[in-house]
């Protein structure tokens, strides 16, 4: 059974391809319950991450938690 709104799980919403690859590397950790984590397709920018989060995911969070990776180097 994969992640769904009736079970505790984490969505990772990557800003770009680099963040997606970072999330993949994290999922390779052997001690992780990786089936409780779903990496979503990258959305193409930090503003888009916020927009997607607000429009698609913020409502009905329930047992869901979100990780929105930020690449700080780009903010400097």
């Amino acid at each position: 059974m994969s992640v769904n709104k009736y079970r505790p799980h984490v969505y990772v919403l990557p800003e770009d391809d680099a963040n997606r690859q970072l999330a993949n590397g994290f999922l390779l950790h052997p001690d992780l319950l990786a089936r409780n984590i779903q990496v979503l397709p990258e959305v193409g920018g930090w503003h888009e991450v916020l927009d997607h989060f607000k429009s698609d995911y913020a409502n009905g969070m329930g047992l869901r938690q979100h990780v929105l990776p930020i690449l700080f180097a780009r903010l400097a």
Partner: protein
Amino acid sequence: MIRRLYIHNFRCLENFELPLAGHSSVLLVGKNGSGKTTVSLALEILQKIARGTNRIGALVTPKDFTRGRSDVPIRLEIEMALEARVYEYIVAFELPEGFKELRVLQERLAVDGRPVYTRDKAQVHLARAGQNQEAKFLIDWHLVALPIIQESSTSDPLFIFKQWLARMLILRPVPGLISGDSNEEQLQPNTQVTDFGAWFSGLLAYSPAAYSRIDQYLREIMPDLKDIKNPVIGKDFRSLTVQFSNQNGTLSVPFEDLSDGEKCFMICALTLGANNAYGPLLCFWDEPDNYLALSEVGHFVMALRREFESGGQFIATSHNPEAVRRFSEENTFLLVRKSHLEPTTLRPLAQIVKGDLVSALVQGDLEP
């Protein structure tokens, strides 16, 4: 772990080298007909040799030459590292004029750079390092030497290499053909995994503890799984049934009646168990996303990647965006073939894609 695979003049692969060193998992992407599956067919030749097929006619045929170019040998070279040793095996096949069946032009196995044996057409020179044993003999040039050279013990590098090669998992499952019946035990499933029952029996006979790994993986996907039974139902004949249960009761389902996707989960579970029990293995899975629900594809691929991260090597091909997204730039290779008259070329993704790979694949932007 394979460090290098070189294939020349075999179907669409000319002077083709797959640089696998340092990668525990690799994804091959490319259009239909670009040569992804052909890489597994080349590996399958080596696997068949190690499993005992030594008649050349059962390994390669004249139609396997690139565009029928039979004046150039078919060459396969593999370099792999196992237990701190480096094994190199080379075999080349040629078709002299007037021959109907190919013959061996060259064959060589070396360990840490020292030859175990070398061969030039029919002449074999056996030179086992460290044992002061040398021998020269002739062998039918339509037979590969590797399966028929006797290893001296299970610690003989020749035995270790052959066993590793024979146990490679090259998977292109056809779930509709998998029944779950078996009349033997074995650790070397065929590519379509039609002998799943025999593999299941062999794995549990070899390592009963493997069941816990299988059970753990399957319960994550199918929480109502109770157990898998493999009862004897006739003389030397077993048939798998899968039991499910919840608060409403128990249901026993013959293996053959599972859905195609569920059979793929079972194959994945055995792959994880096998790598754990008698690995490190190489697993080449051609389109592992086939038959799976979209929500499962990513988890399926990551389960395999994670297993082989700690030992062994996993090579996948895919056209599925969810599967493609589970790999990264450094372990994704693009296979490109401009036309059916031209060979496959390999392009590391890191050099050609900046940004979203899936969009680039959908738009066909990666290929000329």
